[in-house]
């Protein structure tokens, strides 16, 4: 008696569904075979595109935490371990290498640096000049300091003082400020806050040489126009008698050396730095691809598959380079 084979129409609700086990799914994803055209599904262009969207989604998710400030403070904290004392020591070390005199901390410059940092947070900008045109020199002036020369260095989101100093010394304009022999005094501020929704640590250095003028603590409204500096972060005014408004700032917290340190994170310690969280996620993706490529090359060679695919070795070289750069990548931004 001939065997009768059941036929199912395309629309039949009773059509048997082929169940794919988790093991089959993994095999298809990582093991080259007939089902995936002798190339692991993970290395197919369409899967790589999906992986790109997963990377983008993961990155967006990390950044979405910023919309929940209490959660962001608890999970991410502030990424910086920058210490104002170390900034001063490192700055003077760079000067000492060139035989220059060390910079002395000046309380008014500290106030100016803190006021600048807090102005950036309150007005939500990241620049030497505010969108309304407030110049760095205005903060120095408002702190009651009259200068002959003045300069400003800004940095944000650096993990450590050392990395920040390296970044400044790699930038000609910032280096010029650090090793400028005209400067004799410095003010520093390290302030945590939220900039464009991100927990950010701002570092402000105000360099100056005092001008030979007398202070007059009055509420004079005499206009005070500072000359436009050649460099966006360096200014100079002639030494002459000028009346200025002195604004006493009550925002500063003075540290051991009289330097200003802003408020620390809510949690007080870093649970996960945003940059390390992102790096770890990206490195996992890179390692996954490299291991799949190696496994694919090994299997296809052993089973002698004849196929026309991209060069695994080249892909491995590319992703090793990407992985290497991700490991070495350092956070932090300075304004050129």
């Amino acid at each position, binding site marked *: 008696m001939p065997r009768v084979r059941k036929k199912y129409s395309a629309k039949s609700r009773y059509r048997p569904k082929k169940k794919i086990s988790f093991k089959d799914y993994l095999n298809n994803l990582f093991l080259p075979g007939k089902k995936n055209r002798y190339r692991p599904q993970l290395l197919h*262009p369409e899967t790589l595109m999906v992986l*790109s969207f997963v990377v983008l989604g993961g990155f967006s998710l990390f950044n979405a935490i910023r919309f929940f400030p209490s959660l962001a403070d608890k999970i991410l904290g502030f990424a910086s371990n920058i210490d104002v004392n170390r900034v001063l020591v490192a700055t003077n070390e760079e000067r000492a290498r060139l035989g220059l005199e060390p910079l002395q901390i000046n309380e008014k410059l500290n106030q100016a640096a803190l006021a600048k940092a807090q102005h950036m947070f309150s007005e939500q900008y990241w620049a030497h000049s505010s969108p309304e045109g407030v110049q760095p020199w205005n903060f120095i002036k408002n702190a009651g300091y009259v200068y002959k020369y003045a300069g400003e260095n800004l940095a944000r989101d650096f993990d450590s003082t050392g990395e920040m100093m390296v970044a400044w010394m790699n930038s000609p304009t910032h280096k010029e400020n650090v090793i400028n022999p005209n400067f004799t005094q410095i003010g520093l501020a390290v302030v945590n806050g939220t900039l464009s929704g991100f927990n950010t640590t701002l570092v402000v250095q105000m360099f100056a040489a005092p001008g030979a003028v007398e202070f007059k603590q009055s509420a004079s409204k005499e206009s005070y126009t500072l000359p436009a500096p050649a460099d966006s972060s360096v200014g100079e005014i002639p030494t002459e008698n000028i009346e200025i408004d002195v604004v006493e700032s009550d925002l500063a917290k003075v540290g051991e050396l009289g330097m200003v340190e802003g408020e620390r994170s809510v949690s007080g310690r870093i649970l996960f730095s945003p940059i390390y969280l992102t790096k770890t996620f*990206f490195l996992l993706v890179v390692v996954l691809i490299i291991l799949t490529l190696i496994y694919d090359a090994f299997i296809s060679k052993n089973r002698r598959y004849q196929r026309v695919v991209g060069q695994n070795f*080249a892909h491995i070289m*590319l*992703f090793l380079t*990407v992985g290497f*750069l*991700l490991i070495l990548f350092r956070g*932090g931004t300075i304004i050129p």
Partner: protein
Amino acid sequence: MPKLLKKHRLAFLILFLALAVFAFFFSRFWPNKMLQRYLAVGMGTFYFFWGLITHVKSTKITSDIVFEYLAMSMLAVLLLILITL
């Protein structure tokens, strides 16, 4: 693998040098993130065309290979650009 390396010795040497130069400048340009992004795009573009040229020379190229190199390059560039944001 050694056979493959021998066959495409010059191509892999060029790729190795290009990636080494790229890695050097990517590190050197820090903390100028905009330059790092341009460099990452340049590296991705180079890798894509390197793959195509290498395969065209060996007379083995299909649309799958083109898309594979495109997807690999895009993923690499995406990772490097996102980390600089």
